[in-house]
């Protein structure tokens, strides 16, 4: 039978594994007896395999883009964390140690993270020490408690060590909170609106949108982040149908998206995930804040950010 006379629909279902058992058995029986059908299936199999492979190639491209948007930056911190936690073993550790010997910048980073690592360990010890002391106090209320002769000396050493650790932890904590707390980042990345950018007379919706936009920015600048979030969110809801030209619509949309993200970042319990929204904007080609979103994403992936928040 000529190629054109075969129905592609069952061939597609067969090749994509979508046939019910009864239909599959009948189709396979037909394949055994009809050489033309076998040739058709074979030809279409090449096409479907090719489409599937092409789809995989597209997926590979997506993964490369995700990597470029921030994972690569976080990788180094993660490797260093595994190194300090003792999780990096075998050839992976050997390769990392080799890099440490050859790469002065990586060695400095590793050393800096090492301070953080020790700081965290110290803070954990302090926390545990506090618990020990409270248990001691509870015990000391019992009359049969005996105190060892060496305890005062041990206490003095422990107290000195605790003071050093507390000092180190305090310094690192100040740095992390000053530069990496969610509120600090929101303030650092916020840009007041540039009024000269907005143009276009004769657009009936422009005045009202500009008023609401200024109001939302005012709330943000006063530190009323939940109210600012709601104001920017409401603006984003009406922008698609507002009587604006494309230039002004896009201007307000991108500004509002960015400022809504920053307001969410500064909130205790934001309605959206700031990390996801930052990644989304970082991936939005041509978005005014794409570069800033990439940078912000990188900071949100850092150990400093995790410490400070």
């Amino acid at each position, binding site marked *: 039978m000529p190629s054109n006379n075969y129905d592609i629909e069952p061939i597609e279902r067969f090749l994509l594994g979508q046939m019910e058992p009864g239909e599959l058995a009948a189709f396979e029986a037909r394949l055994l007896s009809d050489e033309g059908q076998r040739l058709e299936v074979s030809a279409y199999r090449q096409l479907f395999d090719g489409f599937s492979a092409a789809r995989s190639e597209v*997926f590979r491209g997506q*993964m490369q883009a995700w990597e470029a948007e921030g*994972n690569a930056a976080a990788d180094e911190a993660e*490797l260093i964390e595994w190194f300090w936690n003792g999780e990096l073993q075998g050839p*992976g550790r050997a*390769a990392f140690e080799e890099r440490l010997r050859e790469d002065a910048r990586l060695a400095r980073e590793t050393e800096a993270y090492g301070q953080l690592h020790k700081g965290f360990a110290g803070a954990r010890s302090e926390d545990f020490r506090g618990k020990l002391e409270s248990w001691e106090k509870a015990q000391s209320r019992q009359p049969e408690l005996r105190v060892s002769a060496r305890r005062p000396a041990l206490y003095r050493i422990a107290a000195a060590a605790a003071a050093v650790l507390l000092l180190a932890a305090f310094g690192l904590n100040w740095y992390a909170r000053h530069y990496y707390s969610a509120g600090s980042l929101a303030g650092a990345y916020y840009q007041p609106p540039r009024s000269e950018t907005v143009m276009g007379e004769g657009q009936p919706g422009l005045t009202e949108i500009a008023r609401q936009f200024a109001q939302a920015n005012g709330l943000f600048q006063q530190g009323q982040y939940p109210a600012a979030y709601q104001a920017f969110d409401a603006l984003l809801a009406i922008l698609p149908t507002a009587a604006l030209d494309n230039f002004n619509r896009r201007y307000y949309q991108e500004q509002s998206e960015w400022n809504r993200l920053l307001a969410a970042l500064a909130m205790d319990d934001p309605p959206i995930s700031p990390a996801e929204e930052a990644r989304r904007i970082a991936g939005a080609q041509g978005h005014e804040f794409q570069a800033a979103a990439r940078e912000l994403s990188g900071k949100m992936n850092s150990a400093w950010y995790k410490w400070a928040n």
Partner: protein
Amino acid sequence: MSSYPEDDQLIRQLATGDEGAWRRLYEDMRSPFRLFFIRYGAMSPDDALGLYQEAMVVLHRNCTMGKIQAPLKSSIKTYLFGIGKVLLKKNGTDTRQWDDDIPELPVEPEVESRENQRASASLVQRLLDKVGEPCKRLLELAFIHGYAMNAIAEELELPSAGAARKRKFDCLKKMRGLLH
């Protein structure tokens, strides 16, 4: 009753090609997968990342082709790590010392060499360049980007999903004709 209700729901979402869901999965599994294969697979961090991406491609293909479906017999994480193990075995790596850490998979993943995939993709790309722009666009939407028929109809301004489906088969026939 499924043993992995959350993963069942996720696999249905992934099967539609939802990019956001794939990205979340990619980022959630990236660290544990890399650490596991650096520790047990005797791999450098870069090689572990390469293996992770290959395993994700296999999972993506099997999922979008309907070869892995709910209800699942193992978690997505186990399946993904299992694919990593199968890929390493195919490369001749001895995995016996950590076989027990990843149970055998109820569904063996189909793992194809990258060369074969590239050859198949290249054949289809050459043929797509010959079928004309409208057919090329439609077939790419259907088979590479995983659009449903109604979405294709909307994207290409066709009157209905049925019209898009008919056009898809016409275009496939045109492509098949080029294989002679």
